[in-house]
């Protein structure tokens, strides 16, 4: 990293939840980690459903030394939140918004669209099923599907395609909770002895603790609740789950991966690169 961000702030935006205590955990952890690295003058996070709110963030970074703010959505894909809610609440008028003070707010791409995502999924698959031969394994990337609000299904499909191109796993499939190809059909859709499932979400929660396990058949219905930490830890400790004559490894949501912090920083760097490139070109033309 060569760029100097000491006069810049980083604002990480998460969704948050009013019912799930784990929803904001990864965003808070990535924020703390990036703050520790002391790359940016200031680092903060805000949420749609928790405090600090997106509106609160309008009063952050009041120190005159902060000339720029990089806003990075901790979301899997572009969609309703990145295109409508965040710009509206943060009063962003485009990719770059200049405030009355002269401070410029740069609106970066969401973490999920970073090319490093493929690596992280691969890494997660290895971590959850160490030593399991890839050639005898099907990797399942799971997203929600049929949600009007985001393009996470498209993002999961894109990642599955990229992983398939690597030709390492016997098969790589993108499966959805609510539209075909369905998670519930995993046993029919796969024919390898080992199956690794990675939820393509930014945090653990109801979907990864309850809904997907139920659809996979590894959790008796309504056995635990998303707030019951013991039953959720058990879910991951029991790997591999043996059913339908297969060995199924179930991973935590991809967003809990510590290297997400790197992706967040890189999204800000990528934006800065793009901007300085453009300024250079405009300067040459002028």
């Amino acid at each position, binding site marked *: 990293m060569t760029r100097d961000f000491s006069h810049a702030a980083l604002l990480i935006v998460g969704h948050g939840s009013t019912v799930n*205590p784990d929803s904001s955990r990864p965003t*808070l952890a990535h924020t703390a980690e990036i703050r520790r690295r002391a790359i940016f003058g200031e680092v903060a996070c805000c949420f749609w459903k*928790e*405090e*600090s*709110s997106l509106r609160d963030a309008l*009063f952050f970074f*009041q120190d005159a030394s902060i000339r720029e703010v990089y806003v990075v959505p901790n979301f899997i894909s572009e969609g309703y939140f990145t295109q*409508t*809610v965040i710009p509206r609440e943060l009063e962003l008028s485009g990719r770059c918004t200049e405030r009355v003070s002269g401070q410029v707010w740069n609106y970066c791409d969401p973490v999920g669209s970073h090319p490093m995502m493929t690596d992280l999924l691969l890494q997660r698959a290895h971590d959850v099923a160490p030593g399991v031969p890839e050639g005898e394994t099907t990797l399942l990337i799971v997203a929600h599907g049929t949600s009007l609000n985001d393009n996470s299904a498209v993002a999961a499909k894109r990642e599955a395609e990229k992983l398939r191109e690597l030709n390492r796993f016997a098969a790589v499939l993108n499966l959805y909770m609510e539209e075909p190809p369905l998670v519930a059909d995993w046993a029919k859709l796969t024919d390898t002895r080992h199956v690794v499932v990675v939820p393509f979400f930014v945090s653990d929660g109801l979907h990864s603790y309850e809904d997907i396990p139920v659809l996979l058949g590894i959790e008796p219905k309504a056995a635990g609740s998303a707030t019951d930490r013991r039953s959720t830890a058990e879910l991951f400790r029991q790997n591999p789950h043996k059913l339908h004559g297969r060995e199924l490894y179930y991973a935590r949501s991809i967003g809990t991966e510590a290297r997400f912090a790197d992706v967040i920083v890189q999204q800000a760097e990528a934006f800065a690169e793009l901007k300085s490139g453009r300024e250079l070109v405009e300067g040459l033309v002028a």
Partner: protein
Amino acid sequence: MSETAQHAPADWLDVLPCCVGEILIRRTEAGEFSLCHREDAEMESLRIEREAEAAAELARYDDSGRYRPLKTAPNLQHGWTLLLGRAEDARLALAYFYPGRAAAYQAWKKETLRITALRQTLARQTGMYRVAAGISDEEADALVGNFCKSDGGCLRTILWRRDAAGAVPSTLLPRVKFDPGFDQTGRGEAALPLLCQEACNLLVAEARKVVKTSE
């Protein structure tokens, strides 16, 4: 500038000891910053924590282990004390306990805190929250009176008005709910305010529920 704002310190840690919401901040003899629940001020044998990040966990659950979706609700857990060497860490811990409140306080002191009326917040909503704007004045009066009340609801001092004409947020709330000089815990001590410059998402969600049920 109001008299309260004028006399208030510029920053939360400027004058110690001080109270913010349910938290008491003191300096120990060794010069450390000590944070604890105000009701635990005289307690010995409190569990000692030494990392600012511990505040995130303490703020997440109430005494019975239930998740706290609203950090300014009067249900902060008891039984801990947080000892931190640097002011920077004390600030960070307070930002976990009361996210965004110090920034709002500083902006209020500098008179740059922009206040948004409830009707404006509701009118801005899209998607599933768009219907929330349909709440009647009477319904909003009852909702805010119940949801935001300091006793069992939320310890913030409300700065916003119901509408651009300046109607009070709720006739059911005492005047002191809008007074930054008042200790919202009801303990009657000197306390720095947790300011509410704009209705939170929880209140917007409740407004939506009210509209949905009366449909």
